[in-house]
């Protein structure tokens, strides 16, 4: 690859202008942890590249009952915030210290499967994603953002600018299962958020990663938990339902067979953590 131009815009409007000028040929990268390996190996040969590190989209702030995470906030920033423990956990389970210092929350929405482990946690938290384009900003639920395999509803002239998580984040648990203990792609990732009324579950979110074309919600499993006390039978039922709902794939990390087997196990383990009282906030 012989890159003719590398842009480092200083603001969102400047970045959008560059997209407007150069169109979809412009390769956009934030942390570079996905794009640079491909460029270094000659698998990606862009003429023009834009980096987002200087655009100022990296603020993490609590406001009006939401945690707003700028799209270029690093995974280290996410790890260090205390408002949403689930996101801190997810960041800690992702990559390595150096990669977390470089990789971004927004970028994690686009990491090739089975990446996107932060996205799984965001999905379980009813996160909204904000997109900015020449016509202005729009916000939509993250659940509606993923449209297919490696495709999203982001249009060619837009950028992801922020992810917003409603607070408090509730009773949550996260398990990333890989072939190594750390710095490893996922075989299965599970993020769960439960809302309780006394000892009964009144709302549930189960998000799964690396077992579908993008992070998915196991909605049947979620519905099955409603009204239960998260007893062993309820947990087993949720694990079974989640197994049926997922669409695992085969790659160099794991076969579809193994992923399907492990979804149930990891969902069960994650629900067990919650039953044992991990991260419980009552509101």
């Amino acid at each position, binding site marked *: 690859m*012989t*890159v*003719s*131009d*590398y842009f*480092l815009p200083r603001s969102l409007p400047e970045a959008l202008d560059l997209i407007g000028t150069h169109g979809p040929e412009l390769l956009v990268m934030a*942390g*570079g*942890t996905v794009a*640079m*390996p491909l*460029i*270094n*190996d000659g698998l990606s040969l862009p003429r023009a*590249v834009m*980096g987002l*590190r*200087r655009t100022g989209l990296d603020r993490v702030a609590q406001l009006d009952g939401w945690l707003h995470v700028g799209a270029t906030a690093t995974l*280290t920033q996410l790890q260090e915030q205390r408002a949403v423990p689930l996101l801190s956990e997810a960041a800690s389970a992702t*990559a*390595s*210290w*150096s*990669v977390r*210092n*470089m990789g971004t929350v927004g970028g994690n929405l686009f990491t090739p499967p089975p990446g996107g482990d932060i996205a799984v946690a965001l999905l379980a938290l009813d996160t909204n994603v904000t997109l900015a384009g020449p016509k202005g900003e729009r916000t939509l639920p993250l659940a509606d953002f993923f449209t297919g395999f490696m495709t999203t509803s982001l249009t060619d002239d837009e950028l992801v600018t922020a992810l917003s998580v409603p607070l408090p984040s509730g009773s949550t648990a996260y398990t990333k299962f890989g072939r190594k203990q*750390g*710095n490893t792609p996922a075989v299965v990732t599970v993020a769960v958020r439960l809302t309780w009324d006394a000892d009964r579950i009144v709302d549930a979110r189960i998000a799964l990663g690396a077992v579908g074309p993008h992070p998915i919600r196991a909605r049947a499993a979620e519905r099955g938990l409603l009204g239960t006390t998260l007893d062993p039978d309820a947990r087993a039922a949720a694990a079974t339902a989640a197994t049926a709902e997922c669409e695992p794939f085969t790659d160099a990390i794991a076969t579809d067979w193994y992923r399907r087997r492990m979804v149930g196990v990891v969902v069960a383990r994650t629900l067990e953590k919650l039953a044992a009282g991990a991260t419980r906030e009552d509101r």
Partner: protein
Amino acid sequence: MASSIVAFELGDREVEVVVRPLTTLQSVLRNQVGAMATKEGCRQGGCGSCTVLVDGEPMLSCLLPVEDVAGRRVTSVESITPPEGLHPIQEAFVEGNAFQCGYCTPGMVMVAKALLDHEPDPTHEMIAEALIGNVCRCTGYQPIIAAIGAAAGALQGSKRAPER
């Protein structure tokens, strides 16, 4: 294809280079500045042998366009090596025989430096966690973790037996 001038601090000196667009910091250090201590093991962000510090935080120079570090402070192994003798971390690696082929060592030393700057008294688990992005194919990691523990002790001014 327009080259540009990028200036950054490398240790205690100012560096100015002329680069083609999207040249990595790794390439600049090794091919233009003559600072070969930062190694090249994968160019994928997977091995950690290219680790440098940017404003004190560990990053992988193989994935970092040098333009992104303009005006910032980069620290490499050369930067922490004193004119005479060794940095206590380097001393601890020598004492503890914490290397075999030596290729991963610069990356390990830089992560150790960052860790001990952030956390002067790390546990065995904290050290292992900090090193999770650095691959060694020779030692099995235990001598490296022990050496970093010993370095922590030395830097705090107290002698501590290396943890196993």
